[in-house]
């Protein structure tokens, strides 16, 4: 139908750690890991530099474990503002080559350069140019995958790291891609990989040569999507500049500094979390038609619950009460609570006509609405801490550090 797409996937190598090393050149030749705060019980490795990686330090492992592998490891706290800044600078470089740049997380982007070849050369040449520009202008290194589909471009950027370009061409992808383990394919997580193994599907090639009908039976429609990806039939496009995917849910969660031991403590955390959700719903002119809570207990057992809200709302109090009601109904208190996430779902536009119900007290709702609007206005002028609920003045067992929620966007 169309001529083949040329997609680049550019991945900033060891992004957080590289930025830390740039800011503090003393660190450059040392073993460095960016870690969460141990006091707040987030003491895990978020990112590591190349040298620490060589020692076997892995993202996601606790600090003590990393230090066993690498006793000289220097841990530094994360600096998300810096990362966002650098991420933006690098993206500016990408925009010189195409306007079709789709960020995937802070450090990864897809670029569709199909239309740019006349100006800048073929995909591989553009990839090399980008790699050199990023290195020269920021000091960061990228690994770039060049291919005809987004999935393979991403796969390519993982093959050779750091500071490298890998091309996966249509006529030769089978030799390069198919021997790789299926878990390398985007969309195959550990759970899916384990299930695939049950059917003796170990490599991407195995997956590509399985009858999609069987995959549909085993994995539903996602199985067929995986099969298409493994065969390079994935032809999803790269989102253009300024594209915002529609918001499907707004949520906020935290891992508490200490375990929550009773319902009252959980209520306070839910209320505190909901305040931010409410603000973001208002900013986006949305109402929540449902709420979902995720609870992790101190044995790391994790469970999600959700239910519908009869009258869509953006009120902190209403959402918090729904979320807490759901918690009370569902949580059995076998163990204390370690982490709580509240997420609003079934979002509808504020301007959508909505059926008034006699079961909800409209005058009371309007009062709450006015109160919360006033609170938001005060906060806008005098800061978030200027006014709050009295019960939230106590110790909430929440980290004092600002929780920056990193939204990982999905593939289109």
């Amino acid at each position, binding site marked *: 139908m169309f001529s083949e797409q040329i997609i680049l996937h550019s991945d900033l190598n060891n992004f957080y750690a590289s930025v830390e090393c740039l800011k503090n050149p003393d660190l450059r030749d040392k073993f460095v890991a960016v870690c969460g705060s141990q006091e707040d019980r987030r003491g895990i490795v978020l990112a590591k530099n190349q040298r620490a990686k060589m020692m076997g330090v892995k993202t996601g492992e606790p600090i003590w474990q990393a230090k066993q592998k690498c006793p000289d490891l220097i841990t530094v706290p994360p600096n998300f503002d810096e990362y966002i800044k650098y991420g933006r600078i690098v993206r500016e470089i990408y925009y010189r080559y195409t306007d079709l740049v789709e960020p995937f997380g802070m450090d990864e982007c897809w670029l569709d350069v199909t239309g740019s070849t006349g100006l800048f050369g073929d995909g591989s040449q553009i990839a090399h140019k980008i790699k050199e520009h990023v290195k020269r202008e920021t000091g960061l290194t990228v690994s770039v995958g060049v291919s005809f589909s987004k999935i393979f471009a991403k796969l390519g950027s993982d093959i050779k790291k750091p500071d490298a370009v890998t091309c996966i061409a249509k006529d030769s992808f089978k030799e390069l891609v198919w021997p790789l383990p299926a878990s390398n394919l985007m969309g195959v997580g550990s759970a899916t990989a384990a299930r695939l193994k049950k059917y003796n599907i170990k490599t991407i090639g195995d997956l590509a040569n399985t009858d999609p009908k069987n995959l549909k039976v085993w994995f539903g429609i996602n199985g067929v999507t995986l099969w298409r990806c493994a065969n390079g039939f994935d032809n999803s496009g790269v989102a253009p500049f300024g594209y915002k995917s529609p918001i499907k849910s707004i949520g906020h969660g935290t891992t508490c500094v200490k375990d929550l031991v009773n319902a009252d403590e959980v209520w306070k955390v839910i209320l505190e979390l909901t305040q931010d959700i409410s603000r973001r719903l208002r900013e986006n002119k949305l109402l929540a038609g449902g709420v979902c809570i995720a609870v992790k207990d101190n044995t790391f057992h994790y469970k999600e619950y959700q239910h519908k809200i009869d009258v869509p709302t953006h009120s902190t109090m209403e959402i918090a009460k729904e979320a807490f009601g759901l918690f009370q109904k569902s949580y059995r208190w076998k163990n204390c609570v370690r982490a709580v996430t509240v997420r609003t779902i079934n979002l509808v536009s504020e301007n959508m006509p909505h059926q008034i119900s*006699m079961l909800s007290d409209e005058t009371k709702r309007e009062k709450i609405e006015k109160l919360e609007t006033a609170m938001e206005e005060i906060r806008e002028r005098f800061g978030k801490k200027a006014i709050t609920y009295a019960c939230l003045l106590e110790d909430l067992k929440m980290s004092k550090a600002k929780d920056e929620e990193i939204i990982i966007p999905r593939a289109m």
Partner: protein
Amino acid sequence: MKLVCDRIAITEAISIVQRAVASRSTIPALECILIKAEDGKVVLVGNDLDIGIECIIGSEIISEGKVAVNANLFGNAIRKMSGDTVTIEVSAKGIGDTDTANENNVVRIKCGNSDIKLNGVSASDFPEIHVFETKFDIILTQSELKDLIKHTIFAVGTSETKLILTGCLLEASGNNVNMVAIDGFRLAYKKIVTENDAVSGYLGDVAIVIPSKTLKEINSIIGESDDKIIIKCSNKNVRFEFDNVIFTSRLLEGDYIDYEKIIPSEFKTSIISDVRPLIEAVDRASIIITSEINKSPVIVKIEGPTANICCETSAGKVDEIVPVDMKGDDIEIGFNNKYLLEALKACTTEKINVEFVGPANPCLITPFEGDSFKYIVLPVRLRADR
């Protein structure tokens, strides 16, 4: 047990008691009809534990006894037989005189040239219908009860979260009897006046909440006749006695919504209109409402002597003008088309009053003359006006 009865009479009785037979159950007895030949009469019983129906049929009892038999098989067998009289017999010995476990429960049905044997279930496995002491009776004619049900049941709640609203409120005070249904978005109130005092056995006003399923089944059994139906009530249960049928059901317990508080009494806008053109206009506006999710409202604009009913969706646009007598301020108000239409269709008078408080307040529909019904529809808030 052995009995002889009219085939048509027993067919009708089966179709009545079958309404109380579970279509699929883990307990085989619940899929059965109990045939009881005792004390000189034959009674068919169905009981799914929510409702129980007993139906007496005229028949000649040759020997007494009882047995339960699968309702579908029994019903189909009798319906498909040809002949005027049916003989039903539970033989002392089973089919082929083998020593099967249920040898005593084989139901033999003879009619015309047919002879059908069905394996039954012991009557002792069949759940007894709850017998309770009644506190008071409400006495209506069948057509009166039908009238009440038909004009309110559409507004009954369906959400299990508000269980009490899944039933209709039946209130009786002297010879005033009314039924109320509320689903949270609308209210239907229907009133009748009985010839004699409707309540007996109790001095004062009475109120019960009957599950909608019970009312729907009752409604399909009773006719439009002036035959009496006696509604025997306790706090937890109700028994409808009419013709040859006794229909038992549990009641919904709990406080019903104080519905009178919801009915507005002061209005800013009111119109008088024939009901037919309003129904037709709303019906036509509904043509283009194709999506149940993101449902577009029907917008009613009342200005001067006309009501403008319009609707706009991605499918198109409809504009309707209905001449009305109007008093008060102009108003623009949105409704769920289904709620408005069902309320209008339930109006039993040609002319109605429609009264409004404001675009975010309930709208009240009443007859132009009399007080036989009240319908309230809550509007759809058109745009977040905050």
